[in-house]
């Protein structure tokens, strides 16, 4: 028997509630004091096809999902076929007895837990849609998890939303299913769960963490256009719009969305947009507008696999070089690539400070994996108390009152930062142009002015280095293997390190989060003397490795890359270590 260390997968068609049920079960596990890492996997369709939700739960510290499944719950024949292969010996597959299943290719040691689930549901007075609730009840029954955690989630979800009768029916179904599974199969199932006494944890993903960060940072305006997986940020902030005084706008397209945000920024508001790579492609021209006119704007870019429409509901980290160089000409921008929930929250608010301090666009580069995976974190991970509001060189009404002569919006300064006035003060009136301009903001073609303006703007990038966080080194100072990764690469790399350590292999890990201006010196120092460097990225061309070489000269030849749209798992890294 193994306790508090297992992975569930719930699989079925789109429309069967796989994701919502999975998320509910994950929350139940979290409330039982377990650590959780859950990954949804779904297709770009609304009904049918095959979706699944995978939940790893345990009572010890681990960092990511993994590939070994202990309990698979299949709502469809296709789900049976695809998940039975992932099961560890002793693992079990649960499905309705009515499904015609071909067991010829099943791996050895897999347990067949076919049950009359539909009947159980019917018997408990439930509707067909409650098959997934039954699955959760079964999971509790098999693992021994106290059903009250599941009940709590059901009550929270249905009790509030759809009236008590729905909650009641679901509770009945869960009970019946739990009882049945406990009675008939629990004994044979070797993987058990037990509530542990642990400090309360949040169960949250990158998108919500980032959205909360933005709210914490005082966001005043967000415009966007729906695009998976970026739009949930717009939707979450819209849900809080009235309460937090944030105007949000579902715009007619992404060009309008970023232009609205830039307009709001020009008007002195903390403004942002959220999108994915395809939408970002349409924002490229306006990014340069913000750069040239020194308007603070934050772009949350949640990556998905390209090129073009690509795989809308899957993951990749292939927009790095794109966001670094998007738009014609050269201007300062700041690019943050948070890798953890803590960092997603932090960059959610920090981005606004940086945008205003350096009066330039800030891109927060996330990805589907970080955005949608749910994990338990301590409440302090969303460190509201640590939030600082810094509006940079924004002039106060008093400072504006005291201003003499015509206001120079784009005054040449050593830092490159010119004090800026929000509109509305008689002395802070100025014009600004996307053309090259003089210190007042008027269009100016003179060569010397141009040179000085370019230098002024680009100086801000150097100045901003003061606020750039160096990459973090995890693990021992010296190690046999040094991993380098960025953004959401964090999770599987940390988990691979943990496994390697168990195998007696020492490794450490340089995790790059602030990507631009590139912390070249810190990266070079950290990698100097590394024995074997191995980069890990979710893309085809090894973009971060290329950037490191360009900026530091360090050539990372061993690269573990994944570009099939699926998140990198610790096992993938371990296989890669052998493979390369």
């Amino acid at each position, binding site marked *: 028997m193994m306790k508090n260390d297992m992975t569930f997968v719930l699989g079925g068609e789109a429309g069967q509630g796989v994701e919502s049920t999975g998320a509910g079960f994950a929350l139940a596990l979290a409330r039982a004091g377990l650590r959780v890492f859950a990954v949804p996997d779904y297709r770009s369709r609304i009904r049918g096809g095959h979706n699944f939700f995978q939940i790893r739960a345990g009572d010890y510290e681990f960092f990511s999902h993994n590939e070994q499944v202990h309990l698979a719950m299949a709502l469809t024949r296709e789900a049976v076929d695809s998940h039975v292969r992932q099961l560890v010996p002793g693992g079990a597959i649960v499905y309705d007895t009515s499904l015609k299943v071909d067991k010829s290719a099943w791996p050895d040691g897999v347990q067949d837990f076919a049950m009359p689930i539909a009947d159980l549901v019917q018997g408990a007075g439930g509707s067909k849609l409650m098959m997934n609730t039954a699955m959760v009840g079964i999971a509790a029954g098999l693992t021994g998890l106290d059903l009250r955690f599941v009940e709590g989630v059901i009550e929270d979800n249905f009790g509030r939303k759809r009236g008590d009768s729905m909650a009641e029916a679901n509770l009945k179904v869960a009970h019946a299913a739990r009882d049945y599974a406990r009675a008939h199969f629990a004994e044979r199932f070797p993987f058990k769960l037990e509530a542990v006494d642990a400090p309360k944890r*949040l169960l949250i993903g990158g998108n919500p963490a980032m959205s909360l960060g933005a709210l914490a940072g005082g966001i005043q305006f967000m415009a966007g256009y729906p695009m998976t997986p970026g739009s949930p940020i717009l939707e979450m902030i819209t849900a809080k719009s009235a309460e937090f005084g944030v105007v949000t706008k579902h715009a007619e397209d992404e060009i309008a969305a970023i232009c609205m945000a830039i307009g709001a920024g020009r008007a002195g508001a903390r403004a942002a947009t959220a999108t994915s790579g395809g939408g970002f492609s349409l924002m490229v021209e306006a990014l340069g507008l913000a750069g040239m006119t020194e308007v603070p704007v934050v772009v949350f870019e949640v990556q998905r696999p390209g090129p073009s429409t690509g795989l809308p509901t899957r993951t990749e980290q292939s927009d790095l070089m794109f966001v670094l160089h998007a738009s014609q000409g050269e201007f300062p921008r700041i690019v943050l690539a948070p890798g953890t929930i803590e960092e997603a929250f932090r960059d959610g608010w920090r981005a606004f400070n940086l945008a205003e301090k350096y009066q330039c666009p800030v891109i927060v580069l996330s990805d589907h994996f970080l955005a949608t995976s749910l994990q338990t974190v301590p409440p302090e991970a969303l460190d509201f108390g640590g939030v600082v509001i810094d509006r940079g060189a924004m002039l106060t009404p008093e400072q504006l009152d005291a201003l003499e002569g015509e206001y120079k919006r784009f005054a040449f300064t050593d830092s490159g930062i010119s004090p800026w006035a929000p509109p509305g003060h008689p002395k802070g009136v100025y*014009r600004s142009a996307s053309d090259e301009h003089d210190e007042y903001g008027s*269009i100016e073609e003179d060569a010397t002015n141009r040179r000085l303006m370019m230098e002024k703007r680009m100086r801000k990038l150097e100045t901003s280095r003061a606020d750039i966080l160096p990459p973090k080194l995890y693990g021992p100072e010296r190690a046999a293997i040094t991993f380098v990764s960025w953004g959401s690469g964090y999770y599987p790399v940390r988990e691979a390190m943990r496994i390697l350590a168990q195998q007696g292999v020492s490794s450490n890990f340089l995790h790059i989060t602030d990507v631009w201006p590139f912390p070249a010196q810190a990266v070079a120092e950290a990698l100097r003397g590394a024995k074997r460097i191995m980069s890990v990225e979710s893309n085809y061309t090894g973009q971060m490795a290329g950037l490191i070489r360009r900026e530091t000269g360090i050539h990372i030849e061993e690269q573990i890359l994944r570009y099939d749209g699926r998140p990198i798992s610790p096992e993938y890294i371990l296989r890669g270590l052998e493979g390369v």
Partner: protein
Amino acid sequence: MVTVKDYQSPVTPTWCPGCGNFGIHQAVKTALAELGLAPHQVMLVSGIGQSSKLPDYTHANGYMTLHGRAIPCATGVKLVRPDLKVIVHSGDGDGYAEGMGHMVHAARRNIGIVHIAHNNQIYGLTKGQYSPTSAQGTRSSTSPEGSIDRPVNPLLIALAAGATFVARAFSKNSRELADIIKAAVQHRGYALIDVLQPCVTFNRVNTYEWYSERVYPVSQEPGYDPSDLNWALRAAQIWGDRIPVGIFYQTEDVPAYEEQVPALKAGPVGLRPIRPLPPEKAQALKAAYM
């Protein structure tokens, strides 16, 4: 008291002598001064083109943005600072080619911005290509054998899109234009003013004379009733030997977009001081994830 001089910018216009943009410029300044609006209460937002240089020549909050994108930029301004009067200046290429989609959506939203389209029926700044409003058959560098595209009718499009204020003016009649601008600035919601603006350099057809011979007040049209959409839809189709100018349609019955935004009920969000959230609020946000 605000005067036209308050809007004087130190920058000398680079427009060609005789350009119709001068008349528009004069009218805008006159209108704003007569409304008693001070430069800091106004934001002029433009795209890119000859027309779009206007904010550079005006002492007021000014933002010269991207070709075709003045409307969404202005919308962003308005949505955080509804207390500002926001005026868009666009060209016919800028506003009706690159920016057409934004115009339609601004109109249906009834967002409170005044859209002044400097319609010279040509691309001025890029040296004379035909524009969406150029007559069919216009010869230019991109249509050497005559343009095939039928011209767009901006008034008709705006009406179809739900605009609540639709007008046409002639830049030479600066006084009339100023009056229309005043009405538009005081209007509730989106207002389009399509201004016939001679380009003395690249448009040798639609000259001052050409327009002068043709324009007449739309109010002279039989049954003039700017509150009647169907009347306006018909009047907007008149174009040729006679070109009506004036206010074609206006209704104050539709609330402006910004009036209806829940987050704006408490005042302009752009003026809200930014502070860290109080612990209770933070706690409530977290609670949803536990």
